């Protein structure tokens, strides 16, 4: 049997991006305030026993979970943006569009104001918040209208706008140090994470990623509109509803650990589409690998750029991503 046509491209793209991801992760393991070198990190990863046990502990217990969380968040937000842009056929769609950002932020802020622990307390409340808004939106557009993308988009925008007002209200009431925590959560932050958290998150996300990869070809067909997709044998309603709910669930799970990292979900799909073309069978793995690479690198910069402490990684994602995207868009104008 001859190999499928898309397989070669898929393998090459995945292989290159996987190498980049591994390199970025190595960099992520070596960067930090303890100032370790890249060679020492490589030795630690390779299992050479002559390295300093404190450094080994920092690498394995502190940096590795953080690097893995950054990778998972980058992957989920990018692939989430890709799915929403395809389903809504709207280039401005991003993974938070179904009220996820507003709902999870309200949950998290309430958690911070109540003074519960970051994990599982704040995370759980954020997750509950975003699931509640998702449910609300699905109820608002229930029945046939779920396939009408305008009503879906508008409902999401309205719910997020309402949530933004509630967030502003809660922020305006807060004056002590909790305000700082709230702002960091709203901008996205990887500093509060342990290995258990990352393992749970990873196990939650994996089935979703596989499902999205499975639906890559129907997503291609949906780009031409739901009638055409249906006339080529796609079960439009099943595909749309499954993808919307799976993706929203994955994104909710992710942001409840990392806070509201903006921009990655909007721009990574565009960036990779510019470089690799619009075929989702290639773009889904590319967004997973490319998005995680990008986020790991942004986190490295967030840790090493400030002389004292660290920046919220959400500041870096847009500060680098926006000019990079504009540059690529200008140079690839054909």
């Amino acid at each position, binding site marked *: *049997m*001859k*190999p*499928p*046509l*898309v*397989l070669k491209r898929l393998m090459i793209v995945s292989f290159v991006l996987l190498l980049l991801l591994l390199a970025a992760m190595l960099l992520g393991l070596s960067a930090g305030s303890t100032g370790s070198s890249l060679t020492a990190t490589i030795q630690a990863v390779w299992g050479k026993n002559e390295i300093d046990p404190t450094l080994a502990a920092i690498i394995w217990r502190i940096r590795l979970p953080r690097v893995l969380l950054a990778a998972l968040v980058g992957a989920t937000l990018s692939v989430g943006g890709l799915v929403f842009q395809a389903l809504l*056929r709207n280039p401005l769609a991003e993974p938070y569009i179904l009220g996820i950002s507003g709902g999870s932020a309200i949950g998290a802020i309430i958690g911070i104001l109540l003074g519960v622990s970051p994990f599982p307390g704040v995370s759980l409340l954020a997750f509950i918040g975003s699931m509640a808004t998702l449910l609300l939106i699905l109820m608002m557009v229930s029945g046939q209208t779920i396939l009408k993308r305008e009503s879906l988009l508008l409902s999401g925008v309205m719910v997020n706008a309402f949530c933004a007002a509630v967030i502003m209200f809660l922020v305006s009431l807060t004056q002590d140090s909790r305000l700082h925590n709230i702002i960091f959560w709203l901008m996205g932050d990887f500093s509060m994470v342990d290995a258990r958290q990352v393992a749970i998150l990873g196990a939650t996300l994996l089935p979703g990623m596989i499902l999205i990869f*499975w639906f*890559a*070809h*129907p997503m*291609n*067909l949906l*780009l*031409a*509109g739901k*009638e*055409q997709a*249906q*006339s*080529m*044998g*796609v*079960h439009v309603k099943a595909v749309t509803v499954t993808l919307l709910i799976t993706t929203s669930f994955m994104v909710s799970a992710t942001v409840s650990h990392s806070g509201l990292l903006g921009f990655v979900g909007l721009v990574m799909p565009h960036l990779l*589409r510019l470089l690799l*073309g*619009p*075929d989702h*069978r290639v773009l889904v793995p590319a967004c997973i690998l490319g998005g995680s690479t990008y986020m790991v690198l942004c986190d490295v910069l967030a840790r090493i750029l400030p002389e004292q402490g660290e920046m919220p990684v959400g500041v870096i994602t847009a500060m680098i991503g926006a000019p990079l995207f504009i540059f690529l868009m200008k140079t690839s104008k054909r």
Partner: protein
Amino acid sequence: MTTAIDINKIDHSYGDFPVLQDISFSIETGDFFIVIGPNGSGKTTLMKIIANLIKPLQGRLTLFDRPLESYPRKALARTVAFVPQMAALDFPFTVTEIVLMGRSPHLGLLGWEQADDLEIAKRAIAFTETEHLAHRKLNQLSGGERQRVFIARAICQEPQIILLDEPTASLDLAHQIKIMDLMEKLRAEKNITIVMVSHDINLAAMYAQRLLLLSRGRIVTLGSPQEVLSYKILEDVYGCTLLVDESPIGRFPRVNLVPKKFLPTPDP
């Protein structure tokens, strides 16, 4: 000859507004069948019902003596292909990629095409004479070229029936005739049943073996162009003065519009 499409007492409405009432007819295999009628007569709705994009409120529809609803999704897509009006795709796929999408009802779960599928796509591209466009992006093409690409995609689906919703609307003369010749070639060479909605009565008269005239959701007449295109029926349905004569290039009726200034003025 076997019956490709059999429609039995179909009714449909949008809300309280009836769009199709008591529609019954059948289309033979290998027929070139064109549906005409004024705006809002229910042509497109009828087409979408045959394509299973809309479920009629009442009535039965069979394809090759098998009820429409008994077809699994992919089997139906291997039987009927639908070429929409003004097909568009804003994402930068190439022509070959779009035509290949027509293979999807023949593919497995992941939708990965094999070399054979590419071969079929290339033949469909050759059939529609779009080889020179194969590597271009769809959004760089003109309306007529785009329409031929979507016809190639429909051919690539290897269906027994192709439905087209006003494929020549807003195209220039050369593209209009090219599309119609293409459909005639498909019918003649591959015995594919062609069902088309058209606004252009004269174009329809030149190609259709049978014409269906719809008005306000009801069938007015069904028959050969000679039978359907009588000025009495048409003037009544369209509500304007018409003159029907015979086309100088063949033995089919030609419908001429009569401007108001050429109408005889009634004596005062």
